[in-house]
């Protein structure tokens, strides 16, 4: 089976040479993406079959500088490999339909596609490499590939700024990972993950350092709250197929890192679990609250990625608590919830970003206040986006509900098994999750209602007609995936089985706790049956009476214009103002001066307090460094003075030390 994976990598390799051969952008786009799709298909078949008929396989080869490099396909790696390949396949196919729009505007696609392929290849390698040093190398390739894919339309200042945010965040993450892996290497003497796992005797101080720097490093990449700031700047800057890829699976590399650290390191300290729980809850609730206040689709979806990362974090923290108190059931439920939500989030977030891409093609800019009525212009995208919106809010028939259900179940089981304050804290976490579900419903009804339903608020026809063929197929494919996993949960549970087996060491116990969730399909099928029956009754009844169209009821006001529809900021105004301490909600409007109506403007913008915090830190560093700028004064006499001063200072130190 490994042959398929190698064929996949070979095809990707060929793709890296292709941009040099083909000159014409249009043909290159199709050829390159199709080749990528083919390679990913082989990889997907490999990982699916490896997961279903699972046994741990690893290949070891020696390199002088990094010791023996291990490429291992264990349960966790295969699951993440599957997720990465699935969404890369969707992104490549989507790019075929989406990139011609840019090619018409004269943007050269050769460099972009090269880095896009590099990103896809390095993502797959990140999931399978088990050697820390090679992991860092491949991690940096992923960062480079992602950066150059983001700055595709680099003529825009906002795109360059977003790319810069991304690069700085990735470098900070890498520096933290240096510390984490170096300390581990120092203690165990080798670079391989399984040697880290085999070495049991970590004293608490080094374990604390490793865990903190590891969680912080991978947390920056995943986008947990204090470090999420680069996400809403980088993802909107990228073209839709790249931002879909980034949001769906690139931040999941951070989650893979944290999961891998959890598997390797012994869990003694429960405080980390509670800390991760707190950070995840804050990320989830504030993430969706910030999303509610956004006017740009991609920025809204980016903040939602922060929310879903928070939900995954909740699952992981319950798993960590399970490991601390040696309760395998909690570990299984927590990890199953987290991993499943990773897969589900990857699917519906990719779906939503690709939908947003289609909307961008037809809209005149990104601001949703000027959109509306796109359901008639791009119906297939509207259906896909609706499925994505329902599943991201975690509503029943689709896959969001399944993973949130498992996380709720892990909360309640944890409340049973743990005592002391634990049940209370976990109840608060469950209520936080429910509260955030309510906010998500508000946010996505606003987005879907404003963008797709009603009439176009700017009263202007869409920029172009018709949907790009291949991208709508991708959307419907992802939407059907959401439905299948949602209605038949046991399909995805069997994918998670091997990873859970390795975690708790016993294969069948994992199934016994998780598989009952698989039988939910009876409930969902019953619900769908009920809906079909009632719809049948409705059609039959309306068939026997007259159905006609008329103007919307305007309460007697005759001159109704599309601009009178409810706006996005109006829809979310109160909720956003309720979050005022966290959300810096700024409103600029010209107050009423005279009796007679005069042209007035209203502009509301929601700043992210944490982003302001980081920018303040940046200015602080600038001022601090600025204070030392007198050294290079240009006058030679000062330089001579420095020489004598240095000698004097060192002689003084000689006397002291």
């Amino acid at each position, binding site marked *: 089976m490994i042959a398929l994976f190698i064929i996949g990598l070979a095809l990707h390799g060929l793709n890296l040479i292709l941009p040099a051969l083909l000159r014409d952008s249009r043909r290159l786009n199709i050829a390159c993406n199709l080749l990528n799709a083919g390679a990913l298909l082989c990889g997907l078949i490999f990982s699916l079959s490896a997961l279903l008929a699972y046994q741990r396989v690893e290949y070891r080869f020696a390199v002088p500088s990094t010791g023996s490099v291990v490429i291992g396909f264990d349960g966790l790696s295969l699951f993440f490999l599957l997720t990465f390949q699935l969404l890369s396949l969707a992104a490549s196919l989507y790019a075929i339909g989406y990139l011609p729009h840019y090619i018409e505007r004269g943007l050269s696609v050769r460099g972009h596609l090269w880095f896009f392929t590099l990103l896809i290849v390095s993502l797959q390698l990140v999931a399978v490499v088990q050697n820390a040093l090679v992991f860092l190398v491949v991690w940096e390739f992923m960062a480079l590939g992602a950066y150059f894919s983001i700055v595709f339309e680099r003529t825009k200042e906002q795109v360059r700024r977003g790319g810069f945010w991304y690069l700085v965040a990735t470098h900070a993450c890498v520096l933290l990972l240096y510390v984490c892996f170096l300390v581990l290497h120092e203690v165990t003497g080798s670079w391989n993950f399984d040697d880290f796992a085999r070495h049991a005797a970590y004293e608490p101080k080094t374990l604390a350092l490793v865990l903190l720097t590891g969680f912080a490093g991978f947390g920056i990449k995943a986008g947990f709250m204090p470090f999420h700031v680069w996400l809403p700047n980088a993802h909107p800057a990228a073209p839709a197929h790249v931002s879909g890829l980034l949001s769906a699976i690139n931040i999941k590399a951070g989650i893979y890192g944290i999961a891998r650290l959890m598997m390797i390191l012994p869990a003694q300290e429960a405080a980390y679990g509670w800390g991760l729980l707190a950070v995840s809850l804050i990320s989830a609730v504030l993430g969706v609250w910030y999303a509610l206040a956004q006017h740009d689709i991609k920025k809204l979806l980016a903040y939602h990625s922060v929310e879903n990362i928070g939900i995954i974090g909740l699952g992981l923290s319950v798993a960590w608590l399970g490991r601390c108190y040696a309760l395998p059931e909690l570990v299984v439920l927590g990890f199953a919830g987290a991993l499943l939500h990773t897969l589900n989030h990857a699917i519906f977030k990719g779906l939503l970003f690709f939908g947003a891409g289609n909307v961008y093609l037809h809209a005149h800019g990104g601001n949703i206040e000027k959109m509306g*009525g796109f*359901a008639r212009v791009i119906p297939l995208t*509207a259906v896909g986006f*609706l499925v994505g919106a*329902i599943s991201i*809010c975690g509503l*029943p028939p689709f896959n969001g*509900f399944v993973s949130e*259900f498992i996380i*709720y*179940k892990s909360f*309640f089981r944890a409340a*049973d098994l743990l005592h002391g304050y634990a*049940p*209370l804290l976990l*109840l608060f976490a*469950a*209520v936080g999750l*429910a*509260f955030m*579900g*309510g906010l998500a*419903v*508000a946010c*996505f*009804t606003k987005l*879907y*209602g404003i963008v797709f*339903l*009603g*009439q176009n608020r700017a009263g202007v026809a869409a920029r172009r007609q018709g949907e790009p063929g291949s991208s709508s197929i991708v959307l419907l494919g992802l939407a059907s995936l959401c439905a299948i996993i949602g209605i038949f949960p046991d399909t995805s549970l069997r994918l998670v089985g091997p990873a859970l087996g390795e975690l708790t060491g016993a294969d069948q116990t994992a199934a016994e706790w998780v598989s*009952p969730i698989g*039988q939910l399909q*009876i*409930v969902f099928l019953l*619900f769908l049956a*009920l*809906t079909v029956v*009632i*719809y049948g009754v*409705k059609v039959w*009844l*309306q068939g026997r*009476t*007259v*159905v*006609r*169209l*008329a103007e*919307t*009821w*305007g*309460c007697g006001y005759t001159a*109704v214009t599309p601009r009178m*529809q*409810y706006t996005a900021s*109006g829809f*979310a105004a*109160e*909720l956003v103002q309720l979050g005022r301490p966290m959300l810096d909600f700024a409103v600029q409007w010209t107050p009423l001066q005279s009796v007679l109506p005069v042209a007035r403007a209203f502009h509301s913008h929601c700043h992210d307090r944490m982003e302001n915090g980081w920018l303040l830190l940046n200015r602080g560093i600038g001022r601090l460094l600025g204070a030392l700028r007198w050294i290079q004064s240009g006058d030679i006499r000062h330089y001579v003075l420095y020489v004598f001063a240095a000698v004097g200072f060192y002689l003084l130190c000689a006397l002291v030390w």
Partner: protein
Amino acid sequence: MVKLSSDPLSWLMCALFFAAAPLLTGIINKVKARLSGRFGPTVWQPYYELLRLARKETVYSTSAGFISRVAPVLVWCTIAFAALLLPLGRPAAVSFPGDIILFAYLLALGRFFQILAALDVASSFEGMGASREARFAVFAEPIFFFTIGSLAIVTRRYSLDTVFAEISWRDPLFFVFVSVGVLSLFFLVSAECSRMPVDDPNTHLELTMIHEVMILDASGFDLALYQHAASLKLLLYSTLAALMLNPFGVFGPAVGALVYLATLLGLAAALAAIETLMARFRLLLVPQFLLFGTAIGILNILIFTFSRQS
């Protein structure tokens, strides 16, 4: 794990439940009329309304899309399916551990589609209603989780079918827990089912409505579905409040049914009384009203766990 009740009586009870929903609304209107000195319409008036609407023609707005045609069906089905989960004397029609979460999220799905249907007709009034509905729903969810959720954690049972079985009147602490639970559920009823303190059900001024304005443009069988769903939701939440007192568990099925009906009527009377005596809250105060419901829920669970531990 998923148990479809084999006992035909529980499916019959569900059917009865769907049929009796408009009756409860009728009773509330009747009591309200009586309190304000009017004779008021017959208790069966809502049934006549539904039959009339089923026969009338359906008018769709020009700017409405497929959402307006699908939404009424989905709204009704989600609430109907939620009703299947409730134990009415017999074991619940559908039950599995964790169906509390399904119950809450089904109602959320119904709300999702109702808001979208409101936004679909491109009218500013419906948009206003949708925005208010979305805002209050955010604060209604925590109340549900604090009452039923904390009950589940305390009794360590996570299916609606079994969570109420544990409640016994003899244990004084349990009684405090249950009464506070009923009170916060009462707040939930007024927020979710558009009852007086939050929303005036029979106002004609579109600017003040919340739930009515969302179905302003519905007509014909769609409107019938919406109205039946609304009354069904009212019966659903009242039953939840009634079941908190665990009538079937304590008094057995026959006497329990009587006590259950009595509590329903008592709740209906209380709602009617509030509607005649109180005016509607200002919209900005509603979140505080709901947060108060959540606060007593939190207080309730705190008292319970600390007392249980000592």
